[in-house]
């Protein structure tokens, strides 16, 4: 109980976490070393860094899809494992991961089905979710009939369908073209504001990180460590924001941190 009240505002808290793949073998990889990270409820955090620096690994530790070699990962004051079992988070991958034998609404209803919701409840919720991602008229379509951006929106709807408090996204817009990507960013911010969900967002794109985040976490590689944390405050963002000097300044700050990382 005490711990709970202590961490009331803490969505994720990571202490001295290490992750070693294939320990004690020839292909041992120190993927993460001494990670300390706190994410407050309602935050929008981006993880950025060179390829292979451990962004996905860090996200998987939070998701309890991987177990840290050392240190601890807490999600809403519980162990990551408990949080996964309680389904405190939803997950979105780079490739939408929609099941092509299910139509759009059946895909969105998948996690609800697993939770044993009644059909009527599921349908009502998937309808709400389709409104949220603005795909109402596509509910009976199959994933292959949708564009990449639409598929990602379905994937987001599926991740949010059971109202998790945390949304984990691994390069969700990585496979989209630039225009669709910018549009999806605005949509994601709207959804973030409407639902109040905490977001952890892995990206390779500097402007994307700067535009979306309240905090950008820059990682350095081999072994993966947190290099710096950059706080961004662009207020209410629209497409217009991309032309603001504040946005330019934020991207510059992130870029310089990444240059410092590359320089070693």
């Amino acid at each position, binding site marked *: 109980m005490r711990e709970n009240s202590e961490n009331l505002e803490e969505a994720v808290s990571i202490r001295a976490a290490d992750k070693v793949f294939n320990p004690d073998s020839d292909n041992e990889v120190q993927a993460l070393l001494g990670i300390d990270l706190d994410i407050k409820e309602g935050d929008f955090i981006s993880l950025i860094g060179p390829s292979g620096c451990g962004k996905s690994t860090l996200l998987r530790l939070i998701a309890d899809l991987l177990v840290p070699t050392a240190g601890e990962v807490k999600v809403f004051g519980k162990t990551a494992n408990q949080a996964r079992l309680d389904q405190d988070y939803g997950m979105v*991958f780079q490739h939408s*991961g929609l*099941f092509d034998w299910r*139509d759009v609404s059946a895909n969105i209803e*998948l996690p609800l089905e*697993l*939770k044993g919701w009644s059909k009527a409840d599921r349908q009502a919720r998937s309808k709400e979710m389709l409104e949220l991602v603005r795909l109402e008229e596509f509910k*009976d*379509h*199959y994933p292959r009939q949708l564009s990449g951006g639409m598929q990602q929106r379905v994937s987001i709807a599926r991740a949010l369908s059971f109202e998790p408090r945390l949304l984990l996204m691994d390069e969700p817009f990585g496979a989209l073209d630039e225009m669709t990507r910018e549009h999806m960013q605005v949509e994601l911010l709207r959804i973030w504001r409407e639902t109040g969900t905490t977001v952890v967002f892995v990206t390779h794109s500097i402007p994307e990180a700067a535009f979306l985040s309240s905090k950008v976490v820059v990682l350095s590689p081999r072994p993966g460590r947190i290099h710096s944390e950059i706080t961004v405050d662009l207020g209410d963002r629209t497409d217009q924001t991309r032309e603001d000097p504040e946005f330019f300044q934020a991207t510059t700050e992130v870029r310089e941190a990444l240059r410092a990382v590359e320089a070693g």
Partner: protein
Amino acid sequence: MTKRKAIKTAFTVIVSLVLLVLLWEGYKWMGQQTEDHWPGTQLGLPVSTDDLTMPHASDIFNELTDEIRAGRETLPMTVYLAKKAAFTFLEAAIGFSLGVIVGLMLAIFMLRWRFAEKGFLPWINVSQTVPLIALAPIVVTWARLQGYPDMVGISLIATYLTFFPVAVSGLRGLQSPDSSDVELMRSYAASWSSTLIKLRLPAARPFLFPAFKLAATLSVVGSIVGEISIGTKTGLGRAILDFAQRYSVWPERLYSSVIAASLLGLFVFGLVNAAEWFFIKRGREVLK
């Protein structure tokens, strides 16, 4: 769309049938002219063209409509063969169903426990190298000693042939989902069995149906070989055996029973195709 496709299929079937008959009769006619030699050479034809080896296509088709005495009644050959085929179909259907169940269970078992995959897969492969002719009497004798009707033993032989493609392709299909799909299910805290039902089995369907098609035709082969090798009283295998013994006097009959066997094979193949359409393609039709 589907209607046009059906017409196209029917057309192809008829054309290839006509071609087959023309080829058969053409070869026969040529052989008759040259006394079984390639025209203008002393080279012998691979198959002699006398009426015993190659009866006229028309005689074979006539045979199908002719009457045959079966016990106390006389029946048209088509009806006689259809009755026999129905019996064989039943054995094949039981064998197929059992084979699918056993194959799927093995695939799931090997999916669940890696050691099972390592331990079982070689044996499953070895199992298919045992000659059917040797296996059939063993299985049937066992079934008879247990007091089961012959149908049980024969179906088991069909099962033995059908479980193999299902187990092997099924395992590949169950292992086919991307690791990110499996992670997604894990993120929902889905149990192993929910992951199997909601993800792995649906993802395995495109692997399973080709295996089912193979298994369906194998189940017919297995049933017929089973019938022949134990000498049952009925079934297509029995008819083939009877007609084979009197081939020298009545070759058309053996050919007509062979036609019946191929038709039965085609029929079960078609059934699986229909099931495939129902279970996979139906939803996708919306696509176009």
